[in-house]
């Protein structure tokens, strides 16, 4: 499978998405050279030749060169992204690493004869968070159209938490986690915001120029009507919910441990007015 070979044999890079059997997207189920025809007439063979064969491949080749012999070598792709994002003070490897991840995620977001409507729990959450499926579509179209310059439009699963390191929702509930549409510039992706991506659309001009020229809105419509794989989005939602539940369980366990060490207020002797012997201990510390 050429696509996997390009990433795995070329380096130790692993994508959590390519390695998970649930994702039956473009890159896993179809072999080059057939793959190039797979999304026609909605996304041409020529586009795939360049987009997958040149752009995506170049990101892989360039990242391999960049990380060779460095501390990033041997790390998973998502770890490289996180390390090189560097809390916004972006390091050189970020562009290549993130773009590899983004493109893999994009190919797997599509399938031949895609489109239609989501079902099941995904549809329920869409109705809950966007009012209706049309509501989601409008938000997504708007994000993709108004991402100025190069970038991506996303549907993500967002945990309810503050953007500070140690903030934790003390009473987590399913209700707090939301589906949200976001957009990002250039190589940035929602992993760096700690969201769980479910769907993406590449709106760099190279993604649509050969098929649609400047007509980005037509490209967006075609993607939503004919290419998007809602099954994949559903799988990703399932996986995201599992991850969120696991991390909440971990946090609860940490909280429980900490409670054992918590000093009860009435036991505290640290304030003035405590026993004489404690005052002596205080002096001894000097």
């Amino acid at each position, binding site marked *: 499978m050429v696509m996997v070979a390009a990433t795995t044999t070329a380096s130790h890079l692993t994508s959590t998405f390519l390695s998970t059997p649930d994702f039956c997207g473009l890159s896993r189920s179809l072999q080059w050279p057939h793959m190039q025809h797979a999304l026609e007439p909605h996304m041409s063979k020529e586009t795939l030749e*360049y987009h997958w064969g*040149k*752009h995506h491949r*170049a990101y892989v080749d360039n990242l391999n060169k960049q990380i060779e012999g460095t501390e990033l070598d041997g790390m998973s792709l998502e770890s490289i992204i996180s390390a090189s994002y560097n809390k916004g003070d972006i390091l050189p490897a970020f*562009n290549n690493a993130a773009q590899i991840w983004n493109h893999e995620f994009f190919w797997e977001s599509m399938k031949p004869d895609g489109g239609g409507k989501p079902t099941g729990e995904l549809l329920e959450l869409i109705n809950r968070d966007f009012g209706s499926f049309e509501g989601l579509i409008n938000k997504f179209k708007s994000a993709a159209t108004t991402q*100025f*310059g*190069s*970038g991506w439009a996303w549907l993500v699963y967002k945990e309810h938490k503050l953007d500070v390191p140690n903030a934790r929702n003390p009473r987590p509930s399913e209700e707090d986690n939301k589906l949200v549409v976001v957009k990002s*510039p*250039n*190589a940035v992706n929602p992993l760096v915001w700690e969201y769980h991506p479910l769907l993406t659309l590449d709106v*760099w*001009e*190279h993604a649509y*120029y*050969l098929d649609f*020229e*400047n007509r980005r809105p037509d490209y967006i419509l075609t993607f939503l009507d004919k290419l998007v794989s809602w099954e994949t989005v559903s799988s990703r939602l399932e996986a995201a919910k599992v991850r969120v539940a696991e991390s909440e369980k971990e946090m609860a366990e940490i909280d429980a441990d900490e409670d054992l060490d918590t000093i009860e207020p009435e036991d505290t002797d640290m304030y003035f007015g405590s026993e004489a012997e404690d005052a002596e201990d205080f002096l001894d510390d000097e």
Partner: protein
Amino acid sequence: MALRTLVSGKTLGALSRFQQQIRGLQTFTLPDLAYDYGALEPAISGEIMQLHHQKHHQTYITNYNKALEQLDDAIAKGDASTAVKLQSAIKFNGGGHVNHSIFWKNLAPTHEGGGEPPHGSLGWAIDQHFGSMEKLIAKMNTEGAAVQGSGWVWLAVDKELKRLVIETTANQDPLVTKGASLVPLIGIDVWEHAYYLQYKNVRPDYLKNIWKVINWKYASEVYKKECP
């Protein structure tokens, strides 16, 4: 003033244009190219030139005009939130208009001087500052190729320091966003729409070839004005 605007206007109805003339709001129209779409071949294809001019640049102008009208309204009403909210649309689309207007003047067919290196003070300044034209081109191409995503690479003169500089800007940010004293001499559009149909992903080839149609006469004129 009103007559010229009525004659050239496309995007607005006559009445609203009249109203805007009373308010003094100047809107914009697509400038003509000084050459045919196919005249820059083979460096830049006619197909690209036509799309670039008639679609991309026109869209920036349409959206800029729209944003300006909305801004004008917001200012007149004292609606500060809206006025602030419109700033990004103005930067994107106004910047797009500014940058592309310069770009068309930066290009000329070879039979009209495109590609011919500057003589006179600009040529001398380039040799002084970069060592040679080849070195300038190499540096600009390196910087242009390195622009992540969409943007521009510029040869500019700092009108205060009287010095040539190479700069890049992201998206449609005009050069002044990198320095108030920077005056653009040559801008090269490195958005994918500027080259993709012809060069695909090979931006470096586009950068190598565009120098054959760069209009140094225009750049020299601008330079002489800032550094007489």
